């Protein structure tokens, strides 16, 4: 109320004598619609009761698993058999730029410079190092989606087309993905790409279709030196649990708090 008793209303005179409320009908309806609009996402997004049906055929129960991968950098010989196998197993487009996993070569120079390259993901081998006498250290680092517990890509997806499964794998729903590329931008590890034919985000699935059949991911299957270790993050006797117990572990970009589940052993501090 203003000091002179006039109402600050801009929508015509409404007095109690007319049987109306302090707010006129039209404004009230406006509020109702506003409220309905504001509330609708809530309503739309209501999470349904967890289905009690058996989850996958073949008796696979996702809730009994929680997957991660270990990578021992000192064992990687950079042969890129993993990159080749991954492309075959997952129908990743042949041409460069599209990789679920790839090999990076690090060359540390005595003056502190760090050179990283990954020509065609390492598939065709690596060119000779320039100025080879002037190298402090050089090694290979396999990279892939880190299957973060706190993944930025999932946070930014506007439609819920990328998500973490109950067994801890970050997947993309190809039918539901609208191809907006937000997740590609959001991933700090560059692990996603735009599939050139399907026009949806592509990424490593930990070979989910193999996991449900009790097989390890294709990259792990073909790694000749055991540089990649796959299995349950928790539990005592699994190969990954052992790997985690006997190695000093690092994850990539820990400061981002993405909580990756790809654990690196013997990783040089220079690796990003």
């Amino acid at each position, binding site marked *: 109320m203003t000091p002179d008793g006039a109402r600050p209303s801009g929508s015509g005179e409404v007095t109690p004598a007319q049987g109306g409320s302090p707010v006129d009908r039209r404004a009230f309806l406006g509020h109702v619609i506003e409220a309905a609009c504001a509330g*609708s996402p809530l309503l739309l997004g209501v999470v349904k009761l967890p289905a009690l049906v058996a989850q996958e055929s073949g008796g696979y129960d996702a809730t009994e698993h929680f997957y991660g991968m270990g990578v021992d950098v000192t064992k990687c*010989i*950079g042969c890129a058999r993993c990159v080749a196998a991954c492309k075959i197993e997952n129908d990743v487009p042949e041409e460069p730029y599209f990789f679920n996993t790839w090999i990076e070569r690090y060359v540390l120079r005595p003056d502190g410079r760090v050179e990283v390259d990954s020509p065609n993901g390492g598939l065709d081998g690596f060119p000779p190092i320039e100025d080879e006498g002037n190298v402090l250290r050089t090694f290979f680092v396999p990279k892939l989606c880190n299957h973060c517990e706190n993944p930025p890509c999932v946070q930014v997806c506007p439609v819920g087309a990328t998500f973490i499964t109950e067994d801890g794998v970050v997947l993309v729903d190809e039918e*539901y993905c609208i191809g907006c590329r937000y997740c590609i931008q959001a991933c700090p590890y560059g692990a996603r790409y735009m599939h050139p034919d399907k026009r949806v985000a592509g990424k490593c699935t930990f070979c989910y279709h193999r996991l449900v059949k009790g097989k390890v991911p294709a990259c792990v299957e073909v790694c000749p030196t055991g540089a990649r270790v796959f299995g349950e993050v928790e539990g005592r006797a699994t190969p990954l649990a052992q790997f985690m117990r006997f190695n000093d572990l690092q994850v990539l970009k820990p400061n981002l708090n993405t909580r990756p589940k790809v654990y690196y052993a013997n990783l040089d501090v220079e690796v990003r």
Partner: protein
Amino acid sequence: MRSLPQQVPRLAIVFGVALGGLFVARGLLIPDTFGDRGHYRAAAVDSIAAQPVKFAGRAECAVCHDDVLKPHGAGNHRGVTCEVCHGPAQAHVLAPLEVKPSVVRKRELCTACHAFDPSRPLGFPQIDPVAHNPRAPCIGCHRPHTPEPPTPPEACSACHGHFARQKAVSPHAALTCETCHQAPPQHRTNPRAALPGKPESRTFCGQCHGTPETGVPQVEMESHGQPNLCWQCHYPHYPEIR
């Protein structure tokens, strides 16, 4: 009894229509199975899980190729699974006679892993493909399923071919290298760290050439060639009378 204010039933209708509209929209917009297990379409997981497998895995080969698997599992390539070299073989497992996995016999198969690269970890066996028996197929000398680490050559001739060839056509052909050189076993694996001995005095040659019972040509040890060492005049690997 006072009837309800006029606006209440009208509002109820408006609410009803809005709510109904919402549920219809919800039904149309939210895909089936969304939210069954989380904020995603549960069916997507199932369709990803149904993707066909292409790499069968080593265990699958056991049923039919036990003869290869057993030695392979005990050899240096036990970590190198079958399908690294033979390609994805799930189709072959399902139809062994119709689909044959690839069998690559080219050097490139092996050099992907064994070509020298300074970025590879120390100790991984590597060769220079240009210098290591060029053009000959690797599998001509190394069994692909059970390759052996280089066995240290038995014969001195492997490394000292020049001397061996000379000796072979000389009067000393019947003498072994060890007659004159005490070679420690490590000399074969790490030559410069353990050098064999060499004869040091005239009396060494005198064991034969100053001892008539041996039946070899004799010389007068006290006078012949004094004061020089025998090998200053006679090349030991190809002794000739000059």
